[in-house]
Each structure stands twice: as C-alpha cells, then as structure tokens.
C-alpha cells in the first residue's frame, strides 16, 4: 500500500516537473578561430555540443552557467584544449589558434 502511495506521489511530482516552466541560468560562449581548417577527422566539441564553424571565423553558443570545456576529438580519442567558467548573462570569448602543429586555446571573460 505504502509502495503504491509512494509511486503515485513520485508520478505526480514527475509529471508536475515536466509541466513546470523550468528555466536554467545561461551565458554565452563566443568561439573564434584563426586557422584555416581542422585536420581531417578532427571535431571540436564544447561540453557535449559539436561546433561546426565551417567557413565562418566565429560563432556564439548559449550554454548553461558553470564550468565548460572545449575538446578536440579524433575518432575515439579526445583532448581537452581549455576549461573556463560560463557566467549568467555574460559572454566568454574563446580564441583558437594553430601553434606548432596543434591547436591552442585562450580565454577572455
């Protein structure tokens, strides 16, 4: 009986949460690149978002506040380029440049 009551309460709360107007705090990450193209098979990733710069030199991505990182992924291996804080209603600029055959990352918030 108690188990059923708990299940019912959890169900109501669960359904209620999905019906709520949930807004998380967000900021923005501006990613700038000063290199022509990535090496074949390399993919840039911001947290879990794939960054497709294409022919563009920059893009702006909304992100939840907290710690974020940019990684470069090649096949199964990935390498973290930099880590930075995303703050509420603010822009953090991440510049990516090629140096000595690899990518370097600098952050300005």
């Amino acid at each position, binding site marked *: 009986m108690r188990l059923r009551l708990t299940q019912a309460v959890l169900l*109501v709360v669960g359904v209620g949460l999905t019906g*709520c107007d949930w807004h998380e*705090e967000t900021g923005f990450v501006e990613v700038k690149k000063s290199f022509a193209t990535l090496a074949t098979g390399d993919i840039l990733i911001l947290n879990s978002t794939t960054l497709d710069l294409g022919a563009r030199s920059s893009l*702006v991505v*909304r992100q939840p506040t907290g710690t974020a990182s940019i990684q470069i992924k090649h096949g199964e291996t990935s390498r973290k380029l930099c880590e930075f804080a995303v703050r509420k*209603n603010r822009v953090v600029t991440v510049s990516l440049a090629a140096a000595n055959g690899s990518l370097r990352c600098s952050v300005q918030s």
Partner: protein
Amino acid sequence: MTDLFTPRRRTLSLGGAICGAFLCTAMAAISPAHAAESGTSASTSEAAPSTPLNDFRSQLGDVRKNLEGVNARIEEKAKTIESLSKPDAAKQQVEELQALISQTLGLVADNGQIARLGALALGYARSKQEQMRNDTKFTPSERQALQKRWDQNVAEMVKATDELAKASSEFTQLLKTVQTRGDYAAEVLEVENADEMVRVVRNLAGDVRGASEGLRLFIRSLTPPES
C-alpha cells in the same frame, strides 16, 4: 506565443509541480475530444502547409518584430542610466541591461531555435534543388522553371542565415561592451569612488545608444526569404 523577453529564472515550486500535474492530466483526459475537433481545424489550416521553409519564414518574421521591440527597450534603459546618481541603482541597471541583451542574443545564437530552423530550411531547400536537377517526371521547361525557383530560394536562405549570424555577432559585441563597462564600474566602486562609478555607467549609456542605432539599421535589413 512564449514571451521570449521575460527574464529567465528558475521557477520551480510545489504549486507549479501540482499545477503541471493537473494540467497534464487534464490534457490527457481531453485529448480524444481534442483529436476529434482537430480533424476539422486541420482542414482549415491546409491553406498554408507546414514546411521547414514556411516555419523558418514565419519564425524569422517574429524574431525581427521581437528585435525591434527589444531595441526600443535597450534605448529606454540607456535613458534611465543617464539619469542615475546612485551607485546601487547604476549597478542594478547594468545588470538589467545585460539580462535584456542576453535574452535577445539567445534568440539569434548559433544553437538557438531560429538558427536550427534556418539550418533545417536550408537543408530542405537544397534537397529540393537536387531533386529538381535529377527530375525526369516534368517537361524540360517545367523542370527549368522549378529549378530556377529553388536556386533562388537557396540563395535567399543562405542570405537570411548569414544575416542571423551577423545579428548574433552584433549582439555579442554589445553584451561584451556592457559587461566590460559594468566590470570596470564594479572595480571603481571597490576602490570606493562612487561618483566615478556613476560617471562610468552614464558613459555606457552613450555606447549603448550608438550600438542601438546600428542595430536598428541592421534589423531593418533582416528580411525573411520570399515565398
């Protein structure tokens, strides 16, 4: 329609949860009736079929209206800032201005809804362009006419998505200006020079007005692709 310019906040309460639960239950309960009714309403909306292109056009039109509205509010905020005399009020106004610009930037950010719709619409237009190139069903003149329309459509879509990227860049610059001036004002306040802090924030109003004028011109040039 959702008010995209309401300040973003965490709104989670037991009342909200219960309210959501009741609403969802009610929706589930009335859905069969709603489905029956929608049979008639669907036929009335058949005049404007929902395609990725139509969705993008309509959303871009809404975004443009919203941008015009928010630009007017940014100008109002600049006016308010000019009349400030107290550091606390100045700090609050800068924070409110940051929130206002952030909500707008969220609209045109590269992972925002409109950018995603734009990418979908462009993909759709390109697939139709390809389909017409490979078509064997229509006569050569019909095929050529359709090809021409889709070529034009793709060109307009590319222009519209480029304009969105430009809007995103413009609002990013504006937000960076406001946050940097706000940071400087906070530093000045920390070294206990309240008058200087108010002066810095008032000067910010001039920067914002300049940017706002540029944005107004830009927003006018933001045109949804033709049907």
